[in-house]
């Protein structure tokens, strides 16, 4: 079985951390990632940019409706994900609009932090 582990935290609290505290958390993340890589359990992982960079795509009556901000409907639940490569936001939004569930649900489009070198 594969499992998707979704990480939730308060962005504002995280943003308010001092550099030393932030560095300590990053160190912890590196150690954790290394441990699951070594255990052969790691499939993929990425850090998302904050929700202020998010857009949401819905297709209603054949029209693509793009809105500012993250997905916010409590009546809908997370059902899956695609990780895609796109030249710019418009290309990512166009792909999102082709996801079948966009016709009745929502697709949140969140950029990913570039991998650290």
């Amino acid at each position, binding site marked *: 079985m594969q499992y998707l582990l979704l990480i939730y935290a308060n962005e504002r609290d995280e943003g308010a951390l001092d550099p030393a505290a932030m560095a300590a958390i990053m160190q912890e993340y590196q150690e954790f990632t290394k441990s699951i890589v070594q255990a052969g359990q790691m499939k993929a992982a990425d850090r998302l*940019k*904050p929700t*202020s*960079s*998010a*857009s949401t795509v819905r297709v209603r009556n054949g*029209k*693509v*409706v*793009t*809105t*500012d*901000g993250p997905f916010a409907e409590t009546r809908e639940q997370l059902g899956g994900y695609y990780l895609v490569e*796109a*030249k*710019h*936001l*418009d290309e*990512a*939004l*166009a792909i999102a609009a082709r996801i079948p569930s966009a016709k009745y649900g929502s697709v949140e*489009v969140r*950029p990913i932090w570039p991998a650290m070198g």
Partner: protein
Amino acid sequence: MDTHKRAVHEVYHREAGRVLATLIRLLGDFDLAEEARQEAFAAAIEQWPARGMPVNPCAWLIQIGRNKAIDKIRREVVFRTKVMDREAATAEADALVENPDADAAAFGDDRLRLIFICCHPALSMEAQIALTLRAVCGLTTQAVARAFLVGEDTMAQRLVRAKKKIRDAGIAYETPDPSILDQRIDGVLAVIYGVFTEGYAATVGAELMDAELCREAIRLGYLLDALLPSNARIMGLLALMLLHDARRAARVSSAGDVILLDDQDRTLWDRSQIDQGLALVERSLRDPSPVSHYAVQAAIAALHARAACKGATDWPQIAGLYAVLLRLHPTPVIELNHAVAVSMVDGPERALDLVDSLAARGAVREYHLLHAVRANLLQRLGRLDEARDAYQTALETAKLEPERRLLKQRLARLASYQ
């Protein structure tokens, strides 16, 4: 203001958006380009009085802005990499900046790119309008803040967040792909119309209209029409704005009171602006593409503009156009206007049914005009007590001082009948 300062000011008003648009392409960064634009105009104020205005002020400003930005990039590159030798730093800085190709077509494309980036649907509507006014129209942050009735700091924050979103989300500085161009044009038109309606019918405060916002919206309409010529929807919106704005001088009395269409002095209407609007609405409606709601609204405004006096208004045709509009773009406001037109054709009783059905759906209970229209219909039906109650409710929900004064007048007149 001395002549030189005024000259720079005029160039700023005309070219600010154009200079910024090209600087963003050359520098690849919104903030850097805005700063460069500011420095370029500061240099113009300093240098033009002594050396005279350059032959091509726009190219001069872009050149100066670009050079200032390169200096800044160089300083930062040197700062970032203290050990890097100066030659390498210079090479890196130069690589960041292309040479400006000063041909008019490239300028046009740049402006279009800037409009599309400012009106990107991944930004909130509020952010789109604010960014368009600041970046494309060149309004100061202070002026944009005034238009939104918020403090300058709040507006500055909003603009910073919008630009951060553009950067973080990867919104491209490109005109949209042809497959989504139509939809994105609709978004741009919504922003321009948003600027216009905010100026034409401010939603709170003491003043009824903000003429500067109306002018900027019309300017944006002309700009878009020049960049994407013969587009029926753009012509429709431009016609709509011109025809409404042509009535500006007649809409408010010298005491600042609202004057409704019926009571306006039609000699105060701007005839040349009406003629421009009429020509555009005809071109828009002749286009084979599906008719836009802007063009239909412009056609309604055209019928009002053509009537020499209120008795000459072609109400049956206006009611018909509102019925079309209800199919194209059903909103509570249009439904209400449709009811008003119906009252002029079929009488107040049928119109009251339409208004009551609208009110029963609860969509606009807080909207003062619904109650004002209801009151007027009830009055015409001789149901004066109910009319008074409806005017009272309208007064409780109206937020603009001039509109409140008008409602109080109506109430007083109603009391004199009883």
